[in-house]
């Protein structure tokens, strides 16, 4: 019996088509896996079902009745429960309150019925009793829990909706083995109760363990739905990658080997910290070392930690032959390290200030300047901006007057006046247009040719395949595979990313 059916659902954000043609059919009593790479449209599809995104076109049927889902509240009323990847918990409330937050039991039309709330919450807490670990109790504040325990609370909250259709968007990312096993037992219970479960995970072993069928989405389109029992991991990945997956990186791509004549620009040994562990690598002068893998597998955390803006618990970082171990970004910059974040608004743009003041801070620091003479600075700032083909009318216009791509060029230009030895790029092209991307990568390659060591994390595989000399694939905070030479293919990149850590 079909529980939920979506056909021809589409959604555009401005000119970008997030979802071209989304089809999905979930049967009663099945765990239906949704797979697709970053930006393929599977999150949009989930949001359409959960009511947080209104589709532009397409039909949604629940129990073969056409429905329109007008918002999250309506979705709830239609019997849809969702586990959100970005946890939606109230940190200052207790575990039991969070579990019942969506439907607090009320007495006398006004007061929260605490007895009923406790009873209701206890039912879900009991499910994970043996695996929840130390410090987990019904009255513990969610803010004091470990990440895995918080994820369990989110799962309990989703379960408490008792919805006939449930969506779990990466529910296991923080859980340990025993917790995952327990969760899967509960999912099997849900199947026996004839509920429909949509399950998103990037771990192939989990998908094989719990999934019945898989629907694969690529470039906003539903490609196919398969029975998981009749397929293997390799063919699933092949379908996600598409036809050209086995081709080596395109001809324009970077050479596989760099003349390592000048030795290492940066060496990292056994580095561990918040979000990453036991990472070791070396980037040669003139090399572009790519960081690949799914989003949030430690790549950004590692780059920020190297730059002195994150936490390092053990291990060491060397620039050239000397210990680096920056204690702050200020320290890192002084010693020849540069960092460009994709999150311009937070990490880069000094909003409301003139373009020139957005280029000069690094120069101030490295040249130990006290006085800022506009005429002198202009001679340094203009060439830096021009090497990026930055479009601007006046150096004294506020940076906010520029487009996103040009803002990012301004941010990058600040590192070009005094050349660093190592450049850390943390998904630098996020949200910028194609021509700006092309300018940016031309510059990055030129910088590498001039002898900089470059670490490039990108969430777009094509950028890695086209520019990196080597690619380290991250999974669960550590390097799971190194791709060199002809191994740098889309297929290999996906396979390494989706393998269990």
């Amino acid at each position: 019996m079909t529980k939920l059916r979506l056909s021809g659902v589409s959604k555009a954000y401005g000119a970008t088509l997030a979802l071209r043609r989304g089809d999905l059919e979930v049967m009663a009593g099945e765990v239906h896996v949704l797979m697709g790479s970053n930006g393929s449209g599977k999150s949009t599809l989930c949001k359409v079902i959960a009511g947080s995104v209104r589709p532009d076109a397409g039909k949604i049927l629940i129990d073969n009745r056409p429905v329109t889902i007008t918002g999250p509240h309506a979705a709830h009323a239609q019997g849809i429960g969702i586990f959100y990847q970005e946890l939606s918990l109230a940190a200052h409330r207790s575990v039991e309150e969070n579990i019942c937050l969506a439907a607090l039991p009320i007495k006398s039309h006004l007061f929260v019925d605490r007895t009923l709330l406790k009873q209701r919450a206890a039912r879900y807490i009991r499910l994970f009793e043996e695996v929840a670990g130390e410090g987990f109790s019904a009255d513990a504040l969610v803010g004091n829990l470990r990440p895995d325990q918080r994820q369990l609370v989110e799962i309990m909250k989703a379960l408490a909706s008792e919805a006939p259709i449930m969506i779990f968007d990466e529910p296991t990312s923080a859980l340990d083995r025993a917790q995952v096993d327990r969760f899967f037992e509960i999912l099997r219970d849900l199947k026996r109760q004839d509920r429909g479960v949509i399950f998103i995970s990037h771990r192939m072993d989990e998908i094989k363990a719990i999934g019945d069928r898989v629907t694969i989405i690529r470039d906003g389109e539903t490609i196919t739905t398969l029975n998981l029992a009749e397929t293997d991991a390799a063919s699933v990945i092949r379908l996600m990658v598409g036809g050209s997956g086995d081709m080596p990186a395109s001809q324009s791509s970077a050479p596989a080997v760099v003349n390592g004549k000048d030795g290492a620009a940066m060496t990292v040994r056994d580095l561990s910290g918040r979000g990453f562990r036991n990472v070791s690598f070396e980037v040669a002068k003139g090399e572009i070392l790519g960081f690949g893998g799914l989003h949030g597998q430690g790549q950004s955390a590692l780059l920020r930690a190297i730059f002195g803006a994150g936490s390092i618990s053990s291990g060491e970082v060397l620039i050239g032959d000397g210990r680096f171990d920056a204690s702050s970004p200020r320290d890192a910059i002084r010693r020849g390290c540069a960092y460009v974040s994709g999150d311009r608004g937070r990490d880069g743009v000094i909003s409301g200030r003139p373009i020139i003041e957005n280029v000069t801070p690094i120069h101030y620091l490295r040249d130990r300047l006290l006085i800022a003479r506009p005429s002198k600075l202009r001679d340094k700032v203009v060439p830096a901006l021009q090497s990026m083909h930055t479009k601007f009318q006046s150096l004294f216009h506020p940076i906010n007057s520029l487009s996103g791509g040009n803002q990012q060029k301004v941010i990058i230009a600040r590192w070009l006046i005094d050349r660093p030895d190592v450049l850390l790029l943390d998904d630098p092209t996020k949200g910028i247009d194609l021509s700006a991307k092309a300018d940016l990568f031309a510059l990055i390659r030129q910088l590498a040719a001039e002898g900089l060591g470059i670490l490039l994390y990108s969430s777009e595989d094509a950028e890695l395949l086209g520019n990196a000399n080597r690619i380290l694939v991250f999974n669960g905070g550590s390097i799971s595979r190194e791709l060199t030479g002809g191994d740098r293919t889309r297929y290999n990149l996906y396979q390494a990313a989706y393998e269990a850590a």
Partner: protein
Amino acid sequence: MSRILTVIRQPLVVALVLIAALLYLGQALSPGFASGGQVLRLLIVASLLGIVAAGQNVVILGGREGIDLSVGGVVSLSAIIAGNVMNGADSGIVPAILACLAAGAFFGLLNGLGVTLLRIPPLVMTLGMLGVLQGLLVVIRMGIPSGRAAPGLSSFVTQPLVGGIPGIIWLWIAIGLIMAFMLHRTVFGHRIYAIGSNEHAAYMAGVPVRVMRIALFIISGMFAAVAGLCLLGYSGSSFANVGEQYTLPSIIAVVFGGTSLAGGRGGYTGTMAGAILLVILQSILTTVNIDESGRQMVFGATLLLLMMFYGRGRAMRA
């Protein structure tokens, strides 16, 4: 049309127009209000407020809810220290200046450390410091006499020095030039705007955010100390809580001048106009016999009105 609107919304233009209008109003209410001598007297009073507001200005520009409510207490303390150190003798002027600056810097440092190291919100930290200073003033008052201003200091503040203009006005003009240079032509100034606009981005670009913030509070304390010294010269002798009347007006002057309370936007030129405007307003209120409590109400209402006016203008532009 839209260009005219933009010009009209410039805080400095607004302040200057209002200054002219208030002078005209004052002259109408009480002939002689806008005479040369009277305007000069207003400017002396305005420069006292303007010097306090200079410190307030940099703290507010630095963002993260930066505000210094302890300036009034520092002004009072500085006036008492100066009075006791010089005690009516010109030879005591230089030691008094040094002692006042040291005291201002010390309390500014405490504010800065509380805000950065202990992460106490500036509003709470400086309000607490104001309480400490007020208590300290009471203690000091019981132990020692209030002291008198040296004649040299009094004449610097009240008598014409060069070109018929008293020294304190020249001092204020100099401070205005130094502030403009510091904010727009020094790395320190650019960093103030950077931390006020986007603290995290500034940190990632190597700006020593904590040191900067501590420095801003020290500057504020020192400006308040200078103002306290000059205030002693203006009134001849100090009395308890003489500086109290500066806390709220120093904030209003900064906001009047177009500096955003959110930080990162504004400058000192507008603040100077704001200080003059407030002093004229105060003088008019005195002329029409409105007492202290009434003046406080008008000031409070002015601040709220300004927030509405500028707040809305900014939202429309964004």
